[in-house]
């Protein structure tokens, strides 16, 4: 199951990159990047998954004493939480830059931002 999720995550990353690298519209690029980000998150969570265990939350069903044998690895989840928020921050930032770009050029074509080169 983890492998399936992981494979799906990798595919999302590749699909996202493909979209981000071939679409000329900036908004579409950003959309594609969010897809890739989701893929990364899925891969990360899948790495921490362990078959037949439950979420790392101690309650009546998972008493403290059993935690060692009942819960999955909590670390990747903690990391993904951070990664999601950072990803959202960068997306917001890119959107703001896109707005500024459109404001100046009245286009969202990424190939039009090549004044700086060589």
């Amino acid at each position, binding site marked *: 199951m983890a492998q399936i999720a992981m494979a799906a995550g990798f595919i999302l990353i590749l699909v996202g990159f493909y979209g981000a690298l*071939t679409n000329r519209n900036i908004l579409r690029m950003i959309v594609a990047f969010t897809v890739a980000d989701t893929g990364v998150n899925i891969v990360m969570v899948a790495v921490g998954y362990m078959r037949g265990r439950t979420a790392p939350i101690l309650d009546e069903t998972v008493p403290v004493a059993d935690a060692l044998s009942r819960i999955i690895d909590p670390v990747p989840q903690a990391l993904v*939480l951070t990664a999601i928020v950072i990803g959202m921050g960068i997306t917001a930032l890119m959107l703001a830059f896109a707005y500024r770009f459109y404001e100046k050029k009245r286009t969202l074509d990424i190939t039009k931002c090549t004044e700086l080169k060589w």
Partner: protein
Amino acid sequence: MIRKFAAILLLAGIASIFMGLLFTYEPDAELNTTARYYAERTAADIGATNIVTAIVVTYRGLDTLGEVTVLFLTAAIVGLVLAHGRRRTSDKRRLAPVGELLATGSRFLAPLIILLGVYVFANGHLTPGGGFQGGAIIASGVLLILLADPCRCLSHRVIDTVESVSGLFYVGIAILGIVLAGGFLDSHLLPRGELGALFSAGAIPLIYALIGLKVGAEFSSILAHLSETEEL
């Protein structure tokens, strides 16, 4: 066309790297060193039932501090980027007011949503959810207000103050950890309390609440900045 071809070719190369990872991946049968420590010690040391929260707030608190800073930074930069083109308020086109129903509904709903957000981060150490999720929910409350009443100018002053004060308290608590407890961001400032109670797990609920407020304020700030842009 060449670009597409190159992209496909290179991504095929990347895919083969990923396949190397995927096909040699073997799930752990037992928790590894780090996870084992958390599973065994969190309840006793930190007193939080949600181990992820304990990790996020305490063990890897520096990451979270950084993460909060990412949002802070993003909000600040979005403000800077958009401040450039923003015209004075007087130039703003007056949009037609939205319907009475929507306005009233949102006035009624928004506080509830915000309350829900508070609930989510207040219980972060016990149940799934926490400062970030709670913050996002608060922000969606703010979003609702913005959508319902586009002419309303959200007070940046209030948002910034909430954000700054909660941020300062966060850093303050972190530094207090050095002085009073075992180190930066140590949550043993406050008593551990009873496992599973609302007021338990040391400073975690306090920190997560501050994070919730801060994140909520930051998201709101981003949204408010965006909502003040001109239609192009």
